[in-house]
């Protein structure tokens, strides 16, 4: 059952530029387990959208199948949602994005939905640099079918059942980098201070933006032998640095010592300020990002934060040179060549 949130809110909740409170970005009450990491991610999405003053109805939220893919019901209640087929959300987003380039596409998937059944579509959405935000709620297990290991479970990690996973993990940020993704980040559901600006940056990025969010499964994979538990991730997360997101409209007031921060203007005019970046990572260099990811992994750490970004890449619409007017707004006069043209075609076939 989906429950509606009670409409009553504290009268003094802060409003954004559109006059919306954060409650305007919420969805139905979650039916996930109490303490599920996914709910925290939903909360971060709500906060990011509210703080960015996005019009909720101009966002389309799409997902596949699984616990993660249920979560779009629990945020952005004023947005159209699409809970599609297991592993096939990227293709549905591709078609939707072709139909209307003016919406913001937020895809939500899980580790099973992305790294197993949906691996092919994930890879090809990246390859086409589809303009979308792709959030993986990554808990290393199949929650809805009671906790089987997924393809992102680390080798040797054991879920509640206790058997260590004999297979190596697929590292989604590493894979995405290899496939040519133009925005790659990783975060932790329990670290909103890091996750919220990353979501904002991803939403401002033109092209495919992946955020792999480690999101513990409290029911099946939060035990001491698991590498996707709250405790393990807190102990082993290693941030690339701090990302501040400054929307286009805001004046930049704070200044930092030179050498410690770097500012990047996104294509929509907003600014990303990167602080305290790890010395051996240049997030604008794919090779450096791959090295940093691998170095972190081999030392048993989980690299989080912004890993790589190419802010000037051309997305699928640019590559295809499609009309700037959304295709779904074109009518007969734009689309139908008429009978006269058809009679000429007939003549060429005689």
């Amino acid at each position, binding site marked *: 059952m989906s429950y509606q949130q009670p409409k009553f809110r504290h009268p003094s909740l802060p409003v954004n530029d559109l006059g919306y409170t954060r409650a305007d970005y919420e969805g139905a009450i979650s039916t996930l387990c109490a303490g599920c990491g996914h709910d925290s991610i939903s909360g971060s999405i709500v906060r990011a959208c509210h703080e960015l003053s996005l019009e909720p109805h101009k966002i389309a939220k799409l997902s596949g199948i699984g616990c993660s893919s249920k979560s779009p019901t629990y945020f952005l209640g004023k947005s*159209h949602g699409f809970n599609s087929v297991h592993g096939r959300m990227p*293709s549905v987003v591709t078609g939707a994005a072709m139909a209307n380039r003016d919406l913001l596409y937020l895809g939500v998937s899980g580790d099973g939905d992305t790294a197993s059944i949906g691996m092919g579509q994930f890879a090809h959405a990246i390859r086409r640099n589809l303009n979308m935000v792709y959030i993986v709620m990554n808990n290393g297990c199949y929650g809805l079918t009671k906790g089987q290991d997924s393809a992102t479970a680390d080798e040797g990690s054991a879920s509640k059942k206790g058997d260590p996973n004999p297979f190596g993990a697929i590292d989604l940020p590493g894979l995405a980098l290899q496939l040519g993704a133009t925005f790659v980040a990783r975060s932790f559901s329990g670290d909103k201070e890091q996750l919220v600006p990353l979501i904002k940056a991803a939403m401002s990025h033109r092209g495919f933006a992946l955020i792999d969010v480690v999101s513990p499964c409290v029911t099946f994979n939060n035990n001491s032998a698991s590498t996707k538990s709250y405790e393990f991730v807190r102990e082993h997360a290693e941030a690339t640095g701090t990302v501040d997101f400054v929307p286009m409209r805001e004046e930049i007031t704070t200044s930092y010592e030179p050498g410690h921060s770097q500012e990047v203007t996104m294509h929509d005019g907003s600014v990303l300020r990167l602080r305290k970046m790890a010395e051996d990572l240049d997030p604008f260099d794919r090779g450096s990002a791959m090295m940093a990811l691998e170095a972190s992994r081999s030392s048993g750490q989980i690299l989080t934060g912004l890993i790589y970004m190419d802010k000037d890449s051309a997305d699928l619409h640019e590559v295809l040179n499609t009309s700037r007017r959304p295709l779904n707004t074109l009518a007969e006069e734009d689309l139908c060549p008429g009978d006269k043209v058809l009679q000429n075609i007939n003549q060429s076939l005689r």
Partner: protein
Amino acid sequence: MKSLESINEFVIKFANVNGTGSASANNLFAKALFRMGLPVSPKNIFPSNIQGLPTWYEVRVSEKGYLGRRGGVDIMLSVNPQSMPQDVREVEPGGYFIYDSTKPLDLRLHRKDINIIGIPLTRICNEEYEDPRQRQLFKNVIYVGALAALLDIDFAVLTELVADQFKGKEKLVLPNIHALELGHQYVKANLDCPLGIRVRKSDKVGDKILLDGNTALGLGAIYGGATVAAWYPITPSTSVVDAYERYAKRLRIDPGTGRQNFAIVQAEDELAAIGMVIGAGWNGARAFTATSGPGLSLMSEFLGLAYFAEIPTVLFDVQRAGPSTGMPTRTQQSDVLSAAYASHGDTKQVLLFPSTPRECFDFGALSFDLADRLQTPIILMTDLDLGMNDNMSDPLEWDDERKYDRGKVLTAEDLDNMERFGRYLDVDGDAICYRTYPGTHPEKGAFFTRGTSRDEYAIYTERGEEYEKNMLRLLAKWETIKSYVPRPEIIRSEQQTEMAVLYYGTSEEASREALDYLAADGVHLNAMRVRAFPFNDEVEQFMADHEQVFVIEQNRDAQLRTLLMAEFELGPDKLKSVLCFDGTPISARNIRKQILMHLPGYNVTPLRRERVVGQGE
């Protein structure tokens, strides 16, 4: 031996090696006859291969207007030694076997009951051309020139055609005409001509056009307003998207900006292709994919979603011989059942069965109106025979007053004026509900599309009565659909009869020819061409009106017959099968023979040598 004699009624077959450029020469031959006012029906019978294997091109020439396969071959033009033994055997007694006599014909291949005519094509080529590629290409043109003399084809028509064909590449015109003359002159100087079978100018073509069904479908998608095409290459459907792209680049570039008013995405597989179509349809664009049997199998999960979540979706299935990879370059109508009930759970899908290029164009464009109006997948079922062969067809027409039917879509204003929007609420009593595009209204109209069960307001539910209510509404919608899909075409026999034939798609032409044969045999049958599933009331009435119905189709398992029995609860005795599934288009003689076999009272004497269902040629 008595030689076959005929003017303007015959079957000629070309036996070639694929990848040698024979297709364009053969096409030149067929088009020349077409321009002489003769109905022609050329069919490519080609291997799943790029170069080196046998390939055939069969042309039915019929002033009477029979465009289906007749069966049998009157003239065989053989330039492929690989297939020669089989090709000699196939010639009708009294027919003509024309071969490249540069090397003498194997004595074992000689037949006393046919005319064997040698033309030293390779020698003529080798004497004329140095370049091996030219030798190969012009050999084809030379035999067309030779045929012009043998069959009395108007040479001026040929030269005119060559000039048209190479418009923009004028340098190629004269060499091709020269090659035509080489063949023509050799025959005139060395052989008796014309043959007993020959052509004469006629006026039976009128304003008709020669077009393949796939190109017509691509054009139908352009005219029908499709803006998103997502596909994965598969024979024999690939040329649908090729044609769409070709015409879109001509007709759909925004004059002001130079940008495309369309998007074509070559997907990573068929699953993604249909997913993209569904995503685009959900978001208010007209979108389609084209595929064949294996692709249809892969798409079936998504088709269930589109059925259940009620998302406009258009799929063009150009059928080929299955199961599995089957015979990828041979024709069949064998996806009928898997398309009609595509996907797990209780599903029923709307099918359209065009039988001519004109209908491919009309139904292709109509698919988008139907998908929007009915909010469900529309699967257009064509096949390789129609899709990849040039078919004589009525010219294409478009009513410039026509407006696209975008179905029940609410605007922001509509939403402002209503109390509560329910995506799956049957407001009008026709079981078709209102939908909204994403981004329509800041506060109203948003809903969650899902493949899980939900109530009328699109809220997830597992309550059995809600689920059942929705499934019954979908069934009620199925009834509504019957009034929207194309009606059958019914032809009454001149004589009162309680027997009938039923056919669909590419079985039409051969069936109508067979009906004429049967009438001459004293067997009178009414006929119905089914053009859509669900079957509408006229189909039901027709079935009720006849004691015995022969269902003609090109698959092994009588798939449409099964569909008729399932939908109308008809007994199997009433419906007799007439089938062809060897991968070649069904022929008129084959149909006649099978129907006569079902009628023990009638004297079954085969017209000539014939093929029986299931046997190869």
